[in-house]
């Protein structure tokens, strides 16, 4: 070895350059995160600011009227009730099927079959909502008429992979010791699944279902083809097309009347409010139930 002086590890040129690069990258990363948060604040802020003004009692109780005189109050009552009915029905359709699917895939299926079916579900998840809308139109609506339950069916198809996957994840978290203990005590597989395993997962299922519901409550494309020709009056009958908040926003946004724009913002505020609230509650619930479940180990 030569007798060169030891390199100064803290102040050499190379180190300085590398540290500078690191600092720049850290600033960029922070900036990116701030950008994302900033955009969220801007978007939600716009909706809140412009929508809060039009969010009054009339909005929730009155219905739209194209020939409304300037002073006449109008609202989106039919859209709000319609969304509740359509989304409610979709949850009723998708939840049982999703839970049963997850039970099969996680508890009963041979590995190969489970892989294929899981792949099918994941691929189904990636199909664009508009393609599913056309599918339901061709299958149910063409020649027969629109109906709210057909819209619910389309939304249920969208929800199914989400519910199934969420339930699967929670089922996998249940320790095998529970199953083994139950089986060792002489219970049949179905008894074990329904009375021992499933109750552990209720929290996770509620979480997954809530997130999935929040996700489909804002979907517009399937509604375009299945429940867009609804009347102005408030209705509950799923056999008829019902109005809905996403479609209300969609059509009001492109009108020229500023009053309709205000109502679109108000409807967006209601929709966002529900979606964000549901997501936050679901996440808080999920964190707590996951901690409880893994803690029990």
């Amino acid at each position: 070895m030569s007798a060169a002086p030891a390199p100064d590890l803290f102040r050499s040129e190379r180190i300085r350059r590398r540290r500078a690069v690191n600092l720049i990258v850290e600033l960029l990363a922070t900036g990116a995160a701030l950008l994302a948060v900033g955009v969220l604040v801007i978007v939600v802020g716009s909706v809140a600011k412009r929508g809060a003004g039009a969010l009054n009692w009339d909005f929730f109780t009155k219905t739209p009227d194209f020939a409304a005189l300037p002073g006449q109050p109008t609202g989106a009552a039919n859209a709000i009730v319609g969304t509740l009915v359509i989304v409610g029905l979709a949850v009723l359709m998708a939840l049982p099927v999703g839970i049963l699917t997850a039970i099969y895939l996680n508890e009963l299926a041979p590995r190969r079959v489970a892989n294929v079916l899981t792949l099918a579900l994941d691929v189904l998840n990636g199909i664009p909502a508009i393609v599913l809308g056309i599918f339901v139109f061709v299958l149910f609506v063409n020649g027969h008429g629109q109906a709210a339950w057909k819209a619910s069916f389309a939304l249920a198809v969208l929800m199914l992979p989400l519910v199934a996957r969420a339930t699967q994840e929670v089922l996998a978290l249940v320790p095998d010791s529970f199953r083994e203990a139950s089986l060792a005590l002489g219970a049949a597989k179905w008894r074990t699944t329904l009375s021992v395993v499933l109750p552990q997962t209720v929290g996770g299922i509620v979480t997954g279902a809530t997130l999935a519901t929040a996700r489909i409550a804002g979907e517009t494309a399937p509604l375009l083809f299945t429940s867009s020709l609804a009347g102005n009056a408030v209705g509950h009958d799923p056999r008829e097309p019902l109005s809905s908040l996403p479609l209300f926003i969609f059509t009001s946004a492109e009108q020229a009347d500023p009053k309709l724009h205000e109502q679109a913002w108000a409807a967006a505020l209601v929709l966002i409010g529900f979606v964000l609230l549901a997501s936050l509650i679901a996440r808080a619930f999920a964190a707590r139930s996951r901690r409880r479940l893994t803690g029990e180990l």
Partner: protein
Amino acid sequence: MRGLLQSKMKSRLAAATGLLVAISAVAAFGVGGAQAGSARSSAGEINGAGATFPAPLIAVWQQRYKAVRGVEVNYNAIGSGGGISAITNKTVDFGASDAPLSPDQFSACNGCVQLPWVLSATSVMYNMPLKNNVHMTGPILADIYLGKIKKWNDARIKRINPGVSIPDQEITVVYRSDGSGTTYNFTSYLNTVSREWKSRVGRGTTVNWPTGVGARGSSGVSGVISRTPGAIGYADIAYALKNKLKFFSMQNRAGRFTRPGLVGIRAASLADRKFSPTNELSIVNPPPGKRFLKAYPICTYSYVLLRIQSSKAALLKPFVTWALTAGQQFGPSLVFQPVPAYVVARGKATLRKVHS
């Protein structure tokens, strides 16, 4: 073990509470909505969809007819194309279209009839710091929509507007992106004033627009124009008035510059009084002549589309009859010219074919 049971009960309780809240919310909104909003009619309900062109008048009919007969008429303004496909797909009881059905569409509809029930004009609107009713001719308008004239202060536009100082502004062409009977009317007109338009683009509810930006519905077009300086677009005159947009005075074949008002529409309607076998009347660009001096060149009838065999025939026939007769009185304030007597007669005759 006790901890397990407690948490199990807690989650069950949470789920049950959530369900209860959801059910009561639906119930509350449903009951409250039904009482506060317009209650569902007990006398019956008919559903229609179609053109945005007659929508302002149909909206008034919805109110008035409910007050008179108690029947609820639902109408969704999704465009003429939507109305044609909805009545063909049997998703509505009646359709509305400014574009008459073609033979192919009649055969696809399989048992439909059409009859004119509304008469008005398509205004060509613009957003410029100019006075209202600036002069415009068909050939220039066609060249604008072909993309050949790009600026407001083009020499040709200035020549027909002597004394008007036009700023240097780019023209933004706006058209209907959805299947539109107003497009059919507008392009029919352009077909008659521009050979290049006729061969390159043609007429229809949807065409291959050479330039410009699309918007959905007459209301959407009005919206884009009101937001975009320099924009030009077309929609029923009722929308221009409602949104306080300026519109051109178009030059008719007699050489006069006329406005889309009741006078101009009435004169134009004289251009065609002979029904085609399918009740079609075409009053676009009336010929020169004393009778048509005041005619506005872009007028059209709008048609109601019905199935010959319909379960709602008992409700539809009185409604359409009322619309053709008593309903017309609500038109003039929205610049819908009441349809002539021969149109009413033809409509009633056609309605007799409809049965349940």
